[in-house]
């Protein structure tokens, strides 16, 4: 349960909000690199943290992210022409460079300096891995670029997709922290999904539907361990890291690629879910990439040409009651991503957390909210840099491991929970 004012504090991320200011201390995904594949690509509308922007790539291949609307009459630059190192408004031809500087006002005399007085808001846009990252905060507080392992490995070892989720970012993130729902909502996928099946750990999951949970602090966020009984005297641990504010990883299964998410507010009622899979020591196989593109694992099956999942609210998520009856899916919705999204969207655009009835297995969510709230308040009241800004906090991993019952997962897995280039992830 959260007080209404705390719920608002953590869910509102627009300009001038406290949580919005927090997000504006981090590099966050703005779009996939595939959306701007080459120099002078068509511009892309980007809405992020409730700001409407336009992304484009100039004739030199440089990325720009600027105010979507022309300073002249407020027309959208999405209709604009991208050529000769700038984007030109389709209405009256005003032209801007990647930094938002107006570089041509055709209606003014050729020797006029009026254009030098016009500038649109602009933000840096930088490619790291498959993602174009942006930073919407003050330039003097801009941190080094992100160092999450999924975007540091070679291109053939990683794959990222994205999908639109019609809910506030926080209820999507909380799904990534809350592993207690996996044994129910996603039970069907463990047996059949090509990106999960065959791992020995799956059997531990299926044999013990009442895991114990353990939450431990991390420098950048939290580790949430879920333990189940394994062989005599041992526990099977699945360890989920959360790096503030919006990065989570799913514990791996066997030698399958390891995956996770970045939950990015579009506005207070919508978010982008960036979903990645990577393998630290080998290229992804064609079969694995095909499966990811087809919406298996934690990816979504999107409507061609869009980042909207086929199973969306307009079509009741393609509910299949027969598959539900046969036990192929627990909720009747296909695919892990949309199984999560369908339930999280059903809670409403911003769930009223003052009416929840949490239980102690929600401890991970309780602690994450507390850590988030304290960080928002510390930044707002004292200017304290929040956890997760330092790239050192990004160098983490999830893990799945069998340990003697007396061993602490956090002590025994320090190396396993640290990204190590060229070293395989710890997985069962």
């Amino acid at each position, binding site marked *: 349960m959260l007080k209404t004012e705390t719920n608002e504090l953590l869910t509102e991320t627009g300009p001038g909000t406290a949580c919005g200011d927090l997000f504006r201390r981090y590099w966050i995904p703005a779009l996939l690199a595939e959306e701007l594949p080459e120099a002078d690509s068509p511009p892309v509308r980007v809405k992020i943290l409730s700001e409407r922007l336009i992304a484009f790539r100039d004739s030199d291949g440089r990325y720009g992210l600027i105010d979507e609307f022309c300073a002249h009459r407020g027309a959208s630059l999405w209709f604009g022409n991208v050529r000769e190192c700038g984007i030109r408004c389709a209405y009256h031809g005003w032209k801007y460079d990647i930094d938002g500087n107006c570089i041509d006002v055709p209606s003014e005399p050729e020797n006029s300096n009026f254009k030098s007085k016009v500038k649109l808001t602009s933000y840096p846009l930088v490619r790291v891995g498959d993602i174009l990252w942006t930073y919407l905060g003050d330039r003097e507080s801009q941190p080094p670029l992100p160092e999450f392992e999924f975007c540091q490995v070679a291109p053939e070892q990683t794959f990222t997709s994205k999908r639109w989720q019609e809910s506030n970012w926080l209820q999507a993130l909380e799904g990534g922290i809350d592993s207690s729902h996996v044994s129910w909502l996603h039970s069907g996928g463990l047996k059949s999904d090509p990106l999960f099946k065959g791992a020995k750990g799956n059997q531990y999951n299926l044999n013990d539907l009442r895991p114990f949970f353990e939450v431990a602090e991390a420098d950048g966020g939290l580790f949430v361990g879920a333990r189940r009984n394994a062989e005599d005297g041992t526990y099977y641990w699945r360890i989920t890291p959360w790096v503030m504010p919006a990065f989570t990883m799913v514990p791996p299964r066997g030698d399958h690629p390891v995956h996770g998410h970045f939950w990015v507010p579009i506005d207070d009622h919508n978010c982008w879910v960036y979903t990645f899979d990577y393998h630290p020591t080998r290229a992804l196989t064609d079969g694995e990439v095909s499966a990811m593109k087809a919406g298996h694992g934690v990816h979504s099956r999107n409507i061609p040409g869009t980042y909207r999942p086929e199973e969306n609210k307009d079509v009741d998520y393609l509910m299949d009651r027969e598959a539900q009856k046969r036990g192929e899916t627990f909720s009747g919705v296909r695919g892990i991503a949309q199984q999560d999204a369908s339930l999280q969207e059903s809670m*409403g655009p911003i769930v009223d957390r003052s009416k929840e*009835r949490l239980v*102690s297995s929600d401890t991970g969510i309780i602690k994450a909210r507390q850590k988030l709230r*304290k960080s928002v308040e510390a930044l707002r009241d004292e200017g304290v840099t929040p956890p997760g800004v330092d790239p050192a906090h990004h160098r983490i991993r999830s893990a799945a491991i069998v340990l003697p*019952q007396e061993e602490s997962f956090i002590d025994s897995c320090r190396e396993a929970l640290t990204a190590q280039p060229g070293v395989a992830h710890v997985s069962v």
Partner: protein
Amino acid sequence: MAKPILANACALAATAEEAAYRITREIGSRAALILALDPSAGEVVDRVAERPWGAARFFHVAALAGDTLERELADADVAIMVATADADGAAAESIARACAERGIMTAGLILGEQVDVAAAVSALRPYARNLMVTNDEDDVAEVLRALRA
């Protein structure tokens, strides 16, 4: 089967406007027992206990006399053990066994740096279905508030 025709009969009803039609329900307090397993944890629990709570009850395990625990557990639905590095593992075990017999959920909050409380974590792990290791004393109150204790 009939196709849904009203707005509320499909997934599109997940709007803020439709949320106004959700039925208001009474949500009572959680009958939580908060049990300090060692003197340092007792000091924290005493401070937390001074705040206004619903049905939460606070105890030092070392001070529980006779059948107090059994009586208090009779109407409890969650037992939260609070410990520091000096946690009494035997007390945690007896509380957990009593809770297990009655179907009462157990949770553990261990206060301190991870490296300092490893022994306490090991002692509580078998008995607390949900365990949090934290160096922030506020987490005790935070968890209780979240659970509506």
